[in-house]
Structure formats: C-alpha cells, structure tokens
C-alpha cells in the first residue's frame, strides 16, 4: 500500500462526526478523499461533503477511476491521505482499477432488509460478504468505529 495512504475506511455516511472529529485528528491527515461515483457527480452531495470536511483539511471527491489514477500517479506523495468509501462495491472497484491496498477498516454499514448483523453498526448483505471474502486474500480487514475502540479482526467477526 502506498505510504501516503494512512487509512482506508468503509463508511456509508462518508464524512461525519466520527471521521471529522476523531479520525482526522488522530491520523494527522492532510487530505480526506471520498471515492464515490454518485458523490463525484452530484452537486448537493459535494456541498454537504465540503461542509462536513474539517477546516484546514484538503478534500477530494472523485470517481473510483479518477481517484486511483491520481493516487497511482503520485499526486499526493507528500501528503497523508485518508480514503473513505461508502461500501464494498466501491472498494472492489478501486482494487480492480489497480489500487494496491493491504489494510481496510470497516466503519458504519447500517442494517437493511437483506443484511445480517455482524457487530455494532456493521451489517452485511450476501454481496458484501462475497466481496469481503474475495478481497481478504490480499487485504486485512479491521473493525474500529473510533480511535478509542479496540481494533478488531473483521474477518473473524464476519466468519465467526
């Protein structure tokens, strides 16, 4: 994994209190990168993300393709970048686009009709489960909502 990427998180809420308040300070990041096809194309979502981004932190709102292109070109080499994606689908896409990842943290994935409960704030669909299993050959998945929480091995929770 490139050294400028200090954390990668799955969080359906993208930028919110836990990330803005707890994680950005804890990780001492320069840039928050939201990788999301819909957000990159939707003006109102971009406005909301800009409002949620803490002052002094640079923000990127990019599609999977553009994000990976930029990262792999070394554009952020001198920065500390925190990547947030909404769900497993985007994670799969950025890996397929050629982003090398070895560690991903699973944040909020709320319950829906076709999900099963894994742990507090984390629920997965059968599709999510498949992607986690496929990607876990190369990526270690952790589960930690906020820095003060203990880091758990997500695959153990998922398979357990």
């Amino acid at each position, binding site marked *: 994994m490139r050294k400028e990427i200090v954390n990668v998180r799955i969080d359906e809420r993208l930028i919110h209190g836990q990330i803005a308040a707890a994680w950005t300070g804890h990780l001492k990041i320069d840039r928050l990168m939201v990788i999301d096809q819909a957000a*990159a194309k939707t003006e109102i979502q971009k*406005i909301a993300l800009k409002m949620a981004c803490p002052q002094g932190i640079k*923000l*990127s*709102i990019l599609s999977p393709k553009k994000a990976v292109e930029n990262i792999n070109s070394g554009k952020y080499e001198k920065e500390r970048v925190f990547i947030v994606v909404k769900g497993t689908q985007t994670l799969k896409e950025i890996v397929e686009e050629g982003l090398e990842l070895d560690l991903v943290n699973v944040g909020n994935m709320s319950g829906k009709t076709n999900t099963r409960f894994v742990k507090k704030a984390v629920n997965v669909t059968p599709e999510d489960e498949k992607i986690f299993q496929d990607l876990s050959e190369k990526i270690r998945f952790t589960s930690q909502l906020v820095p*003060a929480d203990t880091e758990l091995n997500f695959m153990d929770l998922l398979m357990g």
Partner: protein
Amino acid sequence: MRGIVLISHGRFAEGIKESLEMLCGECPQVSAVCLGSSDNTDEFAHRLRKAYKEARQYGDPLVFCDVMGGTPCNLALQQLTEECGAALISGMNLPMLMTAALEEADAERLLKEGKNGIADVLAQMERRFVECEEE
C-alpha cells in the same frame, strides 16, 4: 488526559455524554451529574464532589455546565473555588467536549472550539473555504 465532569439541569449532561461517546468512543474519564427537578441541592453537591474526586485521578478536572448562573453552575462554583487547577466552563456543547476528550486542550482552546461549532450553517456555506478537488 484530564478528568471531565458534566453537570446540568435535567438529563442534558447524561445525554451529551452519550452523544460524545458515539463520536469519540467510550470515555471513562467523563462523568455526568444531573440535577433533577425535585432533587435536593445538598445531595447534588455531594454527587458532584464525588464525581470531581474520581475525575481527579485523570489529572486536573474540567467541569462543564449547561448555563452560567444556573444552580449546577453555582454549586460547582462554590466547591471549585477551593480547588486549584480546576476549570469550570459554561455553555457546554459537543465541539468543545470532543476537543476536551480527544486532546490536551486548555480552557481558552475549548472555548474557541465551542464557539466555532456554532454557526448559521446555510449562510456559512457561501463563505466557507475548503480546498476541494473535484472532477
């Protein structure tokens, strides 16, 4: 890490502690002391003293109250004037509490964070500058 005691009229202190922990994770250094509408003030002062003493194990405690001049604030004031190193801050809100829980911040910084967190959000949207990379 400093000990933190939250005090309020009604259950505000308990509630904001719950919100704080949702954002920052479990905060063992934070305790809440609430004054109910039919509570006796001596008894409240006793609970406050106890919470304050426990908070001291984490370093000089910060006490946050809901409103300046209210009973919780007044009772805390009476007790804390004797304590060196304590701070009593009124108008508690989540931005200042998050800073207190996550960082080593002095009273001045906490006030600044608390004030910065108050905004006319829609109006600020026009003025706020974020360096943003888009497609």
